[in-house]
């Protein structure tokens, strides 16, 4: 299976400027048990998008017409903290989001993004806030992974950092498993040596129920 490559994305950027948005808020656990991964979009951010009676809250930025199918999400610190559920990334993808820009991300969510062709970009909070102000009415941004640059609605261009291995994998939609299995002989060699090095680390078959 190959991942969808990510080269560049252009479009509206929904400003969801609150800190510590956790993956439970991004997608409720019951939705993960009840639906397939490509069906999660309608259930993303239920706690923010819906009022107690189940109706859409027009005050929520994600319900505003300018941001329906916005490919970029702007967020504050620690976006995607909490549970390891990869469904949080699948739910974002279901909304059409391909890139999240925030000062920091939950570590597991950050890894999960790269596994699914979603680009998390880390920028200082002041820069994300300035971008959020410019994007409030739906003006488009462009995020170019090839060139590692972001173009704001006012045309200002800024660069962003990304680990070179991660960038390469995203650009080419590389499949980690295929890559690793090329090293399988090395893995098996390591394991064989490890049996001698750490015999205690290898559970004895049938030793315990």
């Amino acid at each position, binding site marked *: 299976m190959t991942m969808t490559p990510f080269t560049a994305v252009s479009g509206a950027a929904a400003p969801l400027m609150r800190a510590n948005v956790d993956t439970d808020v991004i997608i409720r656990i019951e939705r993960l048990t009840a639906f397939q991964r490509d069906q999660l979009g309608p259930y993303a951010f239920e706690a923010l998008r819906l009022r107690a009676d189940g109706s859409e809250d027009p005050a929520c930025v994600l319900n505003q017409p300018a941001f329906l199918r916005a490919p970029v999400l702007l967020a504050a610190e620690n976006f995607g903290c909490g549970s390891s559920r990869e469904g949080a990334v699948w739910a974002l993808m279901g909304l059409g989001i391909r890139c999240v820009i925030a000062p*920091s991300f939950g570590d597991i969510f950050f890894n999960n993004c790269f596994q699914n062709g979603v680009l998390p970009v880390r920028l200082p909070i002041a820069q994300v806030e300035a971008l959020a102000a410019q994007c409030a009415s739906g003006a488009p941004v462009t995020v170019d992974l090839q060139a590692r640059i972001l173009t704001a609605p006012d045309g200002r261009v800024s660069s962003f950092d990304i680990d070179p291995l991660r960038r390469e994998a995203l650009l080419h939609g590389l499949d980690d*498993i295929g890559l690793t299995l090329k090293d399988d002989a*090395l893995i098996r060699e390591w394991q064989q040596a490890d049996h001698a090095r750490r015999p205690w680390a290898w559970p004895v078959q049938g030793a315990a129920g």
Partner: protein
Amino acid sequence: MARTLFDKLWDAHVVRELGNGWALLHIDRHLLHDLSGPPAMAEVAARGLPLHNPELDFATPDHAASSQPGRVPGTFPLGGRLHGALRDLSAKSGVRFYDLGQPGQGIVHVMGPELGIVLPGLTVICGDSHTCTNGGLGALAFGVGSSESTHALATQTLRQQKPRRMRIRCDGVLGAGVTAKDLALHLIGRLGAAAGVGYAIEFAGEAVRALDVEARLTLCNLTVELGARFGLIAPDARTVDWVRGRPFAPTGATFDDAAAYWLSLASDDCAEYDREETIDAAAVAPTVTWGTSPEDAIAIDGTVPDPAQAADDASRSAIEAALDYMGLAPRATIAGTPVDWVFIGSCANSRLTDLRAAADVARGRHVADGVTAWVVPGSENVKRAAEAEGLREVFEAAGFQWREPGCSMCVAANGEQVPPQARCVSTSNRNFVGRQGPGARTHLASPAMAAAAAVTGRITDVRTLA
């Protein structure tokens, strides 16, 4: 060069350096539960690949299992489907599966250490963010998503980038009635829920060394609520004693060799960290959360914040939203807040020592009118051990419900939810919006504090009940 505990664990598992801080790391143990296990196992099968080392994978249903007394797999129908998938996929690929009612079944992070599946010095992963719990034994244990879980099942390795290292030194001694849970909540309140992003955190210092192993598991459990994937405590004599004799622990001379190695993992004296924090354990009070992030933690004699005093607009609106969700007024004292539910369980606090601490408060008292209080042991073995020493009778006599092991109301993926707007004091680790059910209001606390809330009907300083 002087190395930290983390460095030693990392270095011992590098199969190949990949450059720029990345390495192909060997994974020694992979825990599989009913929610994240089946999709990853099915994906490996769909790719036409075998599991690389099924003898290193261990499965048990916990997340979607009902905790109702007398439960069967289908008591919660969706859970029954996931249970069946995990059981069948495990059987097909030769993975050990611990079924409901069997010794060994339980919350993955309780059963792993309990059976000696998790040992000091190992790398351990699970499709669950609280895998960091296992760092309390000195294992390099971390949560992963489905894709990484699939990768590990197929290759027994993961491609990982080395995190930065942080040490949190807890000097002094915790006061009476103050536990590892209070210490963890206090730390998160002080440092913030994002403090550990990008770090592996080692807990050290006098107060940490004084913790028993189960309390260390609790402390490391909450590392991910500090933002870090890894929490670690160096193995010591207490760890070695705790591990000895467990079903999957090595025996005889192999154990002695292993123990000597485990004791060598402690950070070297001159090892350097990217960040260091120090706290005075004596200053930690029983701690509870008031809001919707674990960082919203205050001492039991504290008051809920006032948005009018917030430093900036963003934190003002965050406090307002949290108070609104929690149904609390600005500047309210947290002690005395009436509660509707009490949940004692979860991978944070469902081990035997946790249940003993709660039972000590429940003994001779009764759950207050209008409060529903549950005790959900972390594993079948914990349940049986607790019953053998009479804890079930203590809880039932006090009006608590004694239930079957699993994640229950911590994750609320099993039909067990706190009703909307109901207020729950919970020994779990997340007070997120909707975590315990849509609209549920969660206050995180220690087992003793949760029991104190159950018997008084209010958030109460357990030290006043002595």
